[in-house]
């Protein structure tokens, strides 16, 4: 597959840093995001949310709200389809509670009115008769036998014996190979520890927003900010009981997602309100709603045990991970278990995971979902074990790093990847070899993410003037349209500026999976390369027709059709523009397409390095210096690759030091705003240095791996290792906020 590499210097456009195609609109305020859409006759929709963590909904009286002048529709669970497919059932119930409110902020009813003021007034007129139930928000508490039960129809899956009583533990998973008991018996030194992490939110700056317009006959359109408009279409159609072909979804510009916009919250509500009111309805979440009802990650309780011989060889790695996924079943703990030990080679590995239900919002994906907290625990133990063995933590990682052909922790054998290169680069980096001052510590950590391919459909159209339009169905969350244009320019041999990319609506292209799993530049990029090859074949055929020679006697070189073989040199090469200009008389429009389920995604590894200083009087942690070294396979637009590295690192810094969901005794979220849920700001941070490693992915024509997610995996571990060194005590809980750090230091002294 790999047919261009950096080494042979064949790239002309890929690897350059041109201005992004959507750039001017985004610096002038013209780009249209979710909340910027207006449709004629549009109403304002608002959602009534539960003030209780856990409550039976005995009745809902909407009559007073409906009677209010200006109110055009009120909906409850009864307005959504009764026979929704099982796969969409939890998603529907998470949008609007069915019989029971499962967390503080759970949607209960919704209204559409002629103004926001009237809509807000109408919400207050809806009378919900709640029977408040006991609640549980802590992952360990929820596992206890006497914990309040969320669902009486969920029995733990994955146990050897089928359970007879329902449980908040929805499932048990296990991964690994070998026999860890045997491995630990062969170890000279063993370290085991328990760790806790709190839930965090993706914290995208743009709240969820949409405009729905659905007719009584089930034909409609939806404008929304999402990472996957096909996913939105399919889920909404199922929940509303309409054909997917009748609902056209257009993705707006998206103001950040990070995984949090890979599911739906308000979209079927806007459509159901619109259907009932007979007018378009716009729903925009407040920040309070975003925190209470969307997003967050799992909080986690973990135990990790690793053993090694005195020469530094790891003999066994074992982990027990408990992740709460909110009030619904989740898959995140599986991903934690699979990724936990992925950076290492050991004959004996075992991870067991429990997916736990609590009265919190349904956990959504957040950048390498499930992996960062496991990496925090594992990489902390790896460093501690290295220190006990008297081996440099970086050397210890190099000694035990997973290589091509090794059995991975998650199933398959490792293929070629750049982990060792990231570690070697770190070792030689000036950062690693710079002395530290008092109260300062340096931490390193490695991280892994699978990356993903998935269903993808793209289209390429050659214009009469030789310029090129490309259509993708994968939402551009961070500049991917620029990367798409670069790859097509490279393949066709036309200047970058002559290629323009749009994210097409759901009625214009075949199905595309969501922008997640770091898949877009890999999968849509490869589909476009193959679309361009399809178009090149047709361009050569047109040239052959003009020259009246066989098609196979034409080749495409440097943006031109050129006669080859016995006809070589007989005709002047024709440019793409010249062939396009004659398209009408040679067979009509020239286009290329590709549809596939992309395989061959390349895993991505990173090593992060951080210096922190801990204030011994307050426990405050300051990040002094940070370096990200990650394997990109091939960086298509290096500036945006660096941006992914830096953004992931800083989200990790927030998770490590500041960010946490705080629940009160009443089960309600105490900090649903950016003042009390504090994400990093510019004055908290240093510059974030980056080094791009290019170990090509053989599953992509140009070697591309995904880069978006791995960057959030190592930071919490790297910072924990750094803070532990600076504070002189091993930190085992996130976030490492001043009170926690101070307490750990005080406890260590006592």
């Amino acid at each position, binding site marked *: 597959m790999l047919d261009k590499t950096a080494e042979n210097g064949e790239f002309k456009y890929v690897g350059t840093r041109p201005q992004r195609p959507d750039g001017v609109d985004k610096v002038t*305020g013209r780009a249209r995001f979710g909340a910027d859409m207006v449709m004629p006759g549009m109403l304002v929709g608002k959602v009534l949310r539960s003030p209780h963590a856990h409550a039976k909904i005995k009745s809902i009286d909407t009559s007073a709200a409906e009677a209010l002048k200006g109110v055009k529709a009120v909906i409850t669970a009864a307005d959504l389809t009764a026979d929704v497919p099982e796969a969409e059932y939890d998603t529907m119930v998470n949008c609007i509670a069915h019989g029971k409110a499962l967390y503080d902020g759970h949607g209960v009813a919704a209204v559409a009115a002629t103004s926001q003021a009237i809509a807000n007034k109408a919400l207050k007129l809806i009378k919900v008769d709640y029977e408040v139930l006991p609640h549980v928000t802590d992952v360990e508490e929820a596992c206890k036998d006497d914990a309040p039960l969320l669902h009486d129809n969920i029995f733990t899956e994955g146990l050897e014996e089928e359970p007879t009583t329902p449980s908040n533990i929805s499932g048990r998973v296990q991964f690994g190979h070998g026999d860890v008991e045997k491995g630990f018996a062969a170890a000279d030194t063993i370290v085991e520890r328990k760790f806790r992490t709190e839930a965090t939110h993706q914290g995208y700056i*743009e709240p969820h927003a949409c405009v729905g317009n659905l007719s009584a006959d089930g034909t409609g359109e939806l404008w929304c900010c999402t990472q996957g408009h096909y996913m939105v279409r399919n889920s909404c159609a199922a929940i509303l009981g309409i054909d997917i072909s009748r609902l056209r979804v257009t993705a707006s510009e998206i103001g950040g997602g990070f995984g949090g916009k890979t599911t739906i919250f308000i979209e079927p509500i806007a459509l159901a309100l619109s259907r009932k009111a007979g007018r378009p309805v716009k729903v925009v979440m407040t920040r309070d709603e975003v925190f209470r009802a969307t997003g967050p990650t799992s909080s986690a309780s973990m135990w990790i045990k690793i053993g090694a011989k005195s020469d530094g060889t790891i003999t066994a790695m074992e982990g027990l991970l408990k992740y709460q996924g909110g009030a619904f079943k989740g898959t995140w703990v599986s991903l934690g278990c699979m990724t936990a030990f992925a950076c290492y080679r050991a004959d004996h590995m075992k991870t067991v995971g429990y997916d736990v239900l609590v009265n919190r919002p349904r956990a959504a994906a957040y950048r390498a979902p499930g992996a960062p907290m496991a990496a925090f625990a594992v990489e902390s133990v790896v460093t501690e074990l290295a220190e006990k063995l008297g081996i440099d933590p970086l050397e210890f990682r190099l000694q035990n790093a997973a290589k091509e052909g090794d059995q991975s922790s998650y199933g398959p054998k490792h293929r070629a990847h750049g982990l060792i290169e990231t570690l070697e680069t770190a070792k030689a980096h000036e950062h690693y070899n710079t002395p530290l001052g008092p109260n300062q510590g340096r931490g390193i950590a490695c991280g892994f993410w699978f990356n993903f391919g998935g269903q993808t459909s793209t289209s390429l159209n050659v214009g009469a003037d030789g310029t090129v339009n490309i259509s993708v169905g994968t939402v551009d969350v961070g500049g991917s349209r620029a990367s798409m244009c670069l790859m097509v320019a490279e393949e066709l041999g036309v200047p970058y500026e002559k290629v323009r990319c749009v994210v097409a609506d759901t009625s214009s292209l075949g199905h595309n999976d969501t922008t997640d799993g770091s898949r877009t530049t890999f999968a849509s990029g490869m589909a476009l390369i193959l679309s361009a090859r399809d178009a090149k074949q047709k361009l050569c055929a047109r040239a052959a027709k003009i020259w009246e020679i066989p098609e196979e006697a034409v080749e495409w070189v440097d943006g031109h059709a050129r006669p080859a073989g016995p006809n070589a040199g007989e005709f002047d090469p024709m440019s793409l523009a010249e062939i396009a200009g004659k398209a009408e008389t040679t067979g009509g429009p020239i286009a290329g397409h590709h549809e596939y389920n992309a395989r061959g995604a390349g895993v991505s590894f990173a090593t992060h390095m951080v210096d922190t200083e801990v204030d011994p009087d307050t426990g405050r942690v300051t990040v002094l210096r940070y370096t990200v070294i990650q394997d990109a396979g091939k960086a298509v637009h290096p500036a945006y690759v660096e941006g992914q590295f830096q953004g992931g690192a800083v989200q990790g810094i927030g998770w490590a030091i500041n960010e946490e969901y705080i629940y009160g005794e009443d089960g309600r979220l105490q900090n649903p705003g950016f003042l009390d849920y504090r994400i990093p*700001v510019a004055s908290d941070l240093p510059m974030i240095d980056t080094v791009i490693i290019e170990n090509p992915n053989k599953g992509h024509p140009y070697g591309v791996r995904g880069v978006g997610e791995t960057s959030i995996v190592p930071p919490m571990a790297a910072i924990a290792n750094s803070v532990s060194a600076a504070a002189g005590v091993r930190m085992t809980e996130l976030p490492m906020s001043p009170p926690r750090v101070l307490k750990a230091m005080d406890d260590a002294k006592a």
Partner: protein
Amino acid sequence: MSQIHVQTTINGDETEFLCDAEETLLDALRDKLGLTGAKEGCGTGDCGACSVTVDGRLVCSCLVLGAEAHGREITTIEGMANGEELHPLQQKFLDHAALQCGICTPGFLVAAKALLDRNPNPTETEVRYWLAGNLCRCTGYDKIIRAVMDTAAEMRGA
């Protein structure tokens, strides 16, 4: 309840609109005047995505009432470029790839311009503290800070 008649100047243009007493300047700009460049990220003055200037002073327009615009001069992101010609800050944000999703970008540009209007030669620390009221979740701020510093240098003729 009758609405308030507001006469104001927005990006140099004399403008008038009616608004409710409790309506924010941000809602008036976005919903009444179609100036959707300012974004609502929080509605509580924590994120800076709605940054505009009122008589040259940098504010979160979600914390200002529409009625308070009466008799004032408002500038928004829509007033930053001069026709086809981008402001140097806008060009540098593009050159440095200082945006990913772009939702915070209008607020950052308005805030950064307010800084450079006051202090044409800020240190990195001054830039970081001035922009601490603007949240960006994508970039980690690195390329934003570099873009602002580079603009300042260019505008000084350095």
